[in-house]
């Protein structure tokens, strides 16, 4: 909402408050002034001049040579405007003046003829071209203005325009009177409003026109005034300039006045050319299915039974609250005007405007709400202005259907509630004083106050709204800052939150950087690298902004691959990333996916950079596995974890493993498939993803303390030759199963394949530690267990001791 500082002074005395100060006060009271613009900023030396003579330029077919009276002197000015003529009063940029764009006007010669200034169009004085009423030509004053005086005040170019950001809660400020009420309360200065005076004929309008409303639930009030003898012409300067200030282009007196009243009262009005109306009856009804109407903009619109249509009984003449019909549009020839002032259901207007993509000043006011009690006043104001500026003769009365007025709302509440909610210490007088400044009537009865809220403040309906009204006018800056006095409570991270943080710290300390990627991705990538792929379609949004963000990811890995690719494209091949975030797993038969928090990581490039000590080392499967093992050690779940070779789409078939917790697959790790790497132009990259939420859901196991050992342990090494097909995990398992209580740890320290063993064999060397907390073990005791292990490995896995 653009608010003219000069216009506002019609209603409230602003003396002592500059536009900036006013803006700050308004903003602090809750209606943000987004910025202030000064339409005349930078203009200098613009005076009112009178064109005395206007002769064609001897050497030009379009220039004119004018003698212009500037009050103190008469100067010669060459003017190229097609509309220049003797007798006009016009804004003149004198020698040395500055016009829009900081252009300086200097004495010059046009084809040999001297020119001492410039006659100005409004756009040359900074008025937006789309708002200037005369597109090709200089501005001509249409009334008595004093020659020689500064032109800016006469063009409202000494004004300041406040741009108010209107939220749902401040819809009452979508008009000048509403802003005036607000400013009156904020500045604690009285508001001055004039009641429109309409000189009516004796002849009653309802003798000439009748109204019926079929959709009365959506049209609580429909009123119309009938006016004859209209002469369509440009509206007076003051109306035009105020419209321009409000960002509305002046068109003609009839249209301008209906717009002006809307800006002033907030009530959208519509004017029909009654001579083309086609009947003497206005019928407001729902549109028929696919009913068509051509609107003012020349577009054919197809309506639905949800749209409200103004008709002449047969065919549509306006889409209610949205736009008038072309068939009854006011033209230069219009003589009789039917002026509509109606209340339409906001939601209905909103839906129609949004479906037709026809949001206008009028529809947005209907959408946000109107003052029910201002509708007839607005009709009167328009009639008053039309008689003054369009020669209108007004027939008596407003023809109407529905209730013109509705009662004000009364809110009853303990006045102390205001202090209780705000934490303030206001007296009853202060509170009622503020409410009265807002023009609310207050009646105090002991502890309780009854507040009468005028209908223009339709946003105020409950006691909490009054708390806000008092708070914002009093000023939140005057309310103290306190700390809560309520129940004291303690708080801590949940076990899961704690472990998740520790996981983050661990990942970072072993070199992975945290990333956040998007949950919404391409449909195809949303279905890749899923830990448990059930073959269901990924969850998709109805209206994606782009195919890139259309479906919910089921795995983080594809996004991490993108991050690696991004870095590779920028010459950063050695990267390690991890992300902890939700994946969205479709559930059969349900629209809503299950959400699971996963940890995923990727490493690519080198784990040891090339440096002065030697050559770089590339990352490999065991680098990525080591990351997970370190994590599982840290979380004390390693004993419950197994790895099992697996085949997964997009992964290297020989270098991929599932991660199992207590026998259930919770994730995977491995090398990306070489084909994927080639397609994405990646180096060898390794990924992992684990359902960390299921891993950590129950928090951590309790810490089980053991007394420090008092007896030494015994270490034995063992080298076993097995077939290459035997997995390390099998040997670990057999060794552990046969190691009795005494075997404390097993560590694989060598794997050998080569000339010293058969082609299909390998040697694996383990270091076994035996220990008894109660005593020192004898050689015989250790030998017995050790032998049992060797025998079991031989029997179960065909392992031979390497000599």
């Amino acid at each position, binding site marked *: 909402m653009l608010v003219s500082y000069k216009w506002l002074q019609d209603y409230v005395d602003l003396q002592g408050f500059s536009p900036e100060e006013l803006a700050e006060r308004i903003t602090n009271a809750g209606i943000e002034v987004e910025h202030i613009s000064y339409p005349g900023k930078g203009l200098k030396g613009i005076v009112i001049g009178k064109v005395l003579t206007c002769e064609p330029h001897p050497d030009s077919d379009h220039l004119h040579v004018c003698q212009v009276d500037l009050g103190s002197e008469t100067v010669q000015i060459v003017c190229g405007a097609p509309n220049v003529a003797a007798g006009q009063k016009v804004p003149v940029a004198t020698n040395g003046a500055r016009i829009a764009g900081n252009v300086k006007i200097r004495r010059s010669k046009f084809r040999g003829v001297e020119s001492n200034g410039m006659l100005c169009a409004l756009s040359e004085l900074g008025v937006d071209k789309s708002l200037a009423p005369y597109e090709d030509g200089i501005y001509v004053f249409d009334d008595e203005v004093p020659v020689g005086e500064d032109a800016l005040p006469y063009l409202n170019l000494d004004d300041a325009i406040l741009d108010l950001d209107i939220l749902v809660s401040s819809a009452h400020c979508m008009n000048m009177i509403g802003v005036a009420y607000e400013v009156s309360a904020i500045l604690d200065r009285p508001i001055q409003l004039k009641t429109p005076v309409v000189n009516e004929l004796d002849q009653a309008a309802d003798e000439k026109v009748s109204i019926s409303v079929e959709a009365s639930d959506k049209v609580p009030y429909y009123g119309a005034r009938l006016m004859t003898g209209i002469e369509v012409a440009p509206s007076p300067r003051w109306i035009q300039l105020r419209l321009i200030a409000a960002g509305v282009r002046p068109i003609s007196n009839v249209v301008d006045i209906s717009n002006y009243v809307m800006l002033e009262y907030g009530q959208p009005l519509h004017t029909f050319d009654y001579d083309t109306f086609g009947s003497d009856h206005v019928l407001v009804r729902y549109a028929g299915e696919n009913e068509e109407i051509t609107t003012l903009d020349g577009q054919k619109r197809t309506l639905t039974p949800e749209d409200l249509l103004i008709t002449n009984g047969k065919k549509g003449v306006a889409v209610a609250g949205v736009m008038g019909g072309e068939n009854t549009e006011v033209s230069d020839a219009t003589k009789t005007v039917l002026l509509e002032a109606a209340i339409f259901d906001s939601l209905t207007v909103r839906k129609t405007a949004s479906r037709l993509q026809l949001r206008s000043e009028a529809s947005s006011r209907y959408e946000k709400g109107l003052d029910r009690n201002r509708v007839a006043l607005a009709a009167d104001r328009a009639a008053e202005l039309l008689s003054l500026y369009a020669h209108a003769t007004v027939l008596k009365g407003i023809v109407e259907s529905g209730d013109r007025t509705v009662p004000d709302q009364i809110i009853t509440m303990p006045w102390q509630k205001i202090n209780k909610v705000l*934490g303030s210490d206001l007296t009853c007088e202060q509170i009622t004083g503020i409410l009265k400044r807002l023009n609310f009537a207050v009646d105090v009865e002991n502890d309780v106050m009854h507040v009468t809220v005028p209908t223009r403040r339709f946003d105020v309906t409950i006691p909490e709204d009054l708390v806000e009204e008092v708070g914002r006018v009093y000023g939140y800056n005057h*309310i103290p800052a306190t*700390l809560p006095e309520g129940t004291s409570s303690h708080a801590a991270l949940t076990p899961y939150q704690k472990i998740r943080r520790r996981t983050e710290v661990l990942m970072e300390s072993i070199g992975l950087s945290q990333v956040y990627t998007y949950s919404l991705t391409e449909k195809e990538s949303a279905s890749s690298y899923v830990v448990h792929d059930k073959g269901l379609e990924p969850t998709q949004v109805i209206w994606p902004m782009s195919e890139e963000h259309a479906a919910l990811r089921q795995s983080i890995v594809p996004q991490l691959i993108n991050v690696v690719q991004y870095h590779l494209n920028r010459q950063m091949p050695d990267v390690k990333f991890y992300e902890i975030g939700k994946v969205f797993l479709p559930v059969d038969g349900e629209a809503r996916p299950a959400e699971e928090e996963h940890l995923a990581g990727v490493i690519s490039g080198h784990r040891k950079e090339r440096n002065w000590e030697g050559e770089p080392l590339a990352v490999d499967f065991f680098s990525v596995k080591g990351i997970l093992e370190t994590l599982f050690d840290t979380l004390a779940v390693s004993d419950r974890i197994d790895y099992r070779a697996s085949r997964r789409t997009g992964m290297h078939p020989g270098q991929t493993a599932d991660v199992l917790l207590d026998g259930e697959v919770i994730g995977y790790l491995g090398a990306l498939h070489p084909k994927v790497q080639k397609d994405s132009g990646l180096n060898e990259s390794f990924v992992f993803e684990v359902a960390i939420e299921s891993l950590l859901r129950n928090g951590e196991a309790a810490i089980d303390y053991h007394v420090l050992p008092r007896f030494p342990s015994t270490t034995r090494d063992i080298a076993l030759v097995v077939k290459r097909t035997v997995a390390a995990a099998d040997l670990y398992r057999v060794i552990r199963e046969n190691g009795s209580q005494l075997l404390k740890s097993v560590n694989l320290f060598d794997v050998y394949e080569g000339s010293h063993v058969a082609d299909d064999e390998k040697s694996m060397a383990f270091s076994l530690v035996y220990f008894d907390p109660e005593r020192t073990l004898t050689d015989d005791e250790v030998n017995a267990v050790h032998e049992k292990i060797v025998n079991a490995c031989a029997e179960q896995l065909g392992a031979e001791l390497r000599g």
Partner: protein
Amino acid sequence: MLKEKLLELREQAIENIGSADGLKALQDVHVRFLGKKGPITEVLKGMGKLSAEERPVVGQLANEVRKMIAAKIEEKKADLEAKLLEMKLESEKIDVTLPGRKTVTGNHHLLGSIIREVEDLFIGLGFSIEEGPEVEQDYYNFEALNLPKDHPARDMQDSFYITDEILMRTHTSPVQAHTLEKHKGVGPVKVICPGKVYRRDNDDATHSHQFMQIEGLYVDHNVRLSDLKGILTVFAKHMFGADREIRLRPSFFPFTEPSVEMDISCFRCGGHGCNVCKGTGWIEILGAGMVHPNVLRMSGFDPSEYTGFAFGMGPERIAMLKYGIEDIRNFYTDDIRFLKQFNRA
């Protein structure tokens, strides 16, 4: 006679010790003078020929000479060893300016750091951390927050709907509603809710279809707007510096009444006006307000008994303001050169 011999031996020994240039040579001196077949032993063997008066005198002298030579040898030995060590150390000298074998650590994401900092602050103030689903029911995302289906502040076009009733949450406020419901009408409820939210926007320098939010909620008997002001003051000073001031401006959110926006005094210019605060001296940080009675009621709290405040902030905005980050997409592009700069954040 023997006496002179001993004194002479002593002189010889001292000379030999002095000229020994290594441990081996010194060992030879030791063997030569103090060995079982050495000259002092020989002298002692010849003591039988001495008179009873001379014998103790020479005996004592011989012991003294022996002790003295041994001490000199020890002294020399320590000296030689020290020299040797010095030489060894000299030979072990390295270029200490060569780079060390450091462990390259990863970086914590700036948004993660901001969220963690806010979480820690509020845990200290007695707020627990609640999390909720990112795919929400329309009811929790809107209706339970006093945004009925036809509310003008609601636009299907602004949200990622999955069905008419299911959508990507557009704010973390639904966690409020869930949390209140869980407490079944009994306060206090004191939580903050960080998480990802989604809006149907085109990504550009200032818009992201996915971003973070942190919601705060405190419902109890007698919670006041002044308490909100107090808590937010603590927050502002903690995050932006101890000399920050805050101001509350009235605003509008459907789920709070009254609603406010919190500005902080500009941390760049201290309030005099600069390009960070666009000359106003104040920077808008977050939205807040007193929980709307409808919200309390819908989630099972009696608004005549309970009041509460809620606030919501954007970690991206905080980070962008604090560090002058120009493009919100940086947070999701995850360029390591960006991430690295905020490892200490």
